[in-house]
């Protein structure tokens, strides 16, 4: 394995709080993990866990109390390192008096492109995020979804190797979320590393190679989504319909719940065929048989429920 794309070591951030700034609040406590080149990495946690704080530290917007981080082998203090990264902030704000095209042009100027190259990129990435039609509209007229797309465009138009996205799908409608997911997959196909934070767990499950879970400023675990959740098949779910006049077999009745016009039965995997036999005997029509796996959400609720000292809802203030 070569140089990790992102290397975080003991990253800690304290804030001075209180009127006289005497007390400290630890927003991030000794964060340590790595992200491999080419991974799509999810950074998960509830609001206020410290996800945005981590991203701000990596981007150089705030400075760590202790600890280090390197991106592609270069320290986060190195300004030139920023040539290789792209960043989409949460709830992106851009200069609302600029048009989309002007904003991308402005963003591109920070890199050493020729004028022709810059213009080509602006057009190409406007197209890529589907904003060609609105290219010359002022950003103050943009909807949230459109702003998100401009944000992604400015984050990737210089072909960075590592892309950081803070809550890229929050606040978007399903179409928007789908588009963002497609872009992330596309970036992965190009061999780039994508690091995004989210509290929308289904997205993480679908997209990520690995995830890290952050709660109350502390890392809870790093691994594949499956590893995190540790596969415990909870059982099987059978959906079935009964013809008129027929009733649920007595042995199963206790575990059957109505689900619309149909019924739902949960059984342990070992009892699956037995249950199906019984249902067939009752002339039930089987609609579906599904494996029940715990989700990240279940893991989350367990995890967060366990936490006794709630962290300050710092990130709420940012909204």
């Amino acid at each position: 394995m070569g140089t990790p794309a992102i290397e975080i070591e003991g990253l800690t951030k304290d804030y001075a709080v209180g009127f006289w700034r005497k007390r400290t609040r630890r927003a991030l406590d000794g964060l340590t993990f790595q992200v491999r080149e080419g991974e799509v990495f999810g950074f998960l946690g509830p609001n206020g866990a410290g996800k945005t704080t981590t991203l701000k530290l990596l981007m150089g917007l705030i400075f760590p109390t202790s600890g280090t981080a390197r991106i592609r082998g270069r320290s986060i203090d190195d300004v030139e390192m920023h040539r290789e990264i792209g960043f989409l902030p949460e709830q992106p704000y851009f200069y609302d008096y600029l048009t989309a095209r002007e904003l991308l042009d402005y963003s591109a100027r920070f890199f050493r492109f020729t004028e022709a190259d810059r213009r080509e990129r602006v057009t190409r990435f406007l197209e890529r995020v589907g904003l060609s039609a609105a290219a010359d509209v002022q950003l103050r007229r943009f909807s949230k979804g459109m702003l998100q797309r401009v944000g992604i465009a400015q984050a990737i138009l210089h072909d960075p190797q590592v892309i950081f996205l803070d809550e890229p799908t929050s606040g978007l409608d399903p179409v928007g979320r789908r588009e963002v997911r497609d872009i992330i997959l596309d970036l992965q196909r190009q061999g780039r590393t994508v690091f995004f934070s989210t509290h929308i767990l289904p997205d993480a499950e679908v997209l990520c190679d690995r995830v890290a879970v952050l709660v109350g400023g502390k890392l809870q675990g790093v691994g594949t989504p499956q590893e995190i959740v540790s596969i415990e098949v909870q059982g099987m779910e059978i959906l079935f319909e009964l013809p008129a006049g027929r009733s649920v077999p007595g042995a199963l009745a206790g575990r059957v719940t109505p689900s619309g016009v149909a019924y739902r039965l949960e059984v342990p995997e070992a009892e699956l065929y037995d249950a199906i036999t019984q249902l067939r005997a009752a002339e039930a029509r089987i609609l579906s048989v599904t494996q029940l796996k715990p989700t990240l959400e279940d893991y989350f609720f367990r995890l967060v429920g366990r936490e006794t000292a709630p962290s300050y809802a710092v990130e709420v203030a940012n909204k």
Partner: protein
Amino acid sequence: MSSVPLFVAVNTFRESVRDRVLYNLIFFALLMMAAAVLVGQISIGIERLVIINLGLSAISLLGLVMSVFIGVGLVYKEIEKRTLYSILAKPVRRWEFLAGKYLGLLLTLAINTALMTLGLFLALLYVDRAIGRADAHILLAVYFILLEFALVTALALFFSCFSTPILSTLYTLGLYVAGMFASDLRDAGALSSSGAVKAVTSVLYYALPNFSNFNVIGATAHGDPIPISLVWQNTAYAAIYILALLLAASAVFSNRNLK
């Protein structure tokens, strides 16, 4: 040498232009020029004097208002609105960004001043029916006013790096007024019997930005020539003070944890 400050400056200028406040000020200034011509009718025999006084004073006052009110928001707005997040994630040093914002506001002020000066000359043309060589002095007076703007903007920018617009405005205006009274302060201190008071007022006199250095409105109105040595000295004074302020601002901004 990177061109970051330059295109940041252009972008800052663009913001001022698209911000309609600027247009109102220009309109107001043109109105003043018209008033100058009218007032000249009343003060017969001293039309030139009055027009130059009124014109230069208007240019000075309006530009000052702009320097302060836009200046105190230069950095503050970017932090509050989080527009800085995506910018600082790019290969840009914080001081480069700061320099760009500063130059951008200066550009706005320069262009605004140029337009108003044009208006002033038009008013003079109307009164005198000719522009003489003596009117070149007016350009020098305008140059000094621009130096003043540059210094005030640097002050406002400095405060903008760590303070809210209201407080920054108070600090900046406070320093401006104090700077105007600096020599009086020293004179008053010189009369005191206490050595400490003398020392303190003396130090203040040298430390405070001495804005009265740049004021030649009255002299220009009376047609006095401005010595070339004063031009160099004022330029140097402004440049040095501005450099100091920008260095301080850069230090503060570079170490600031953004929200």
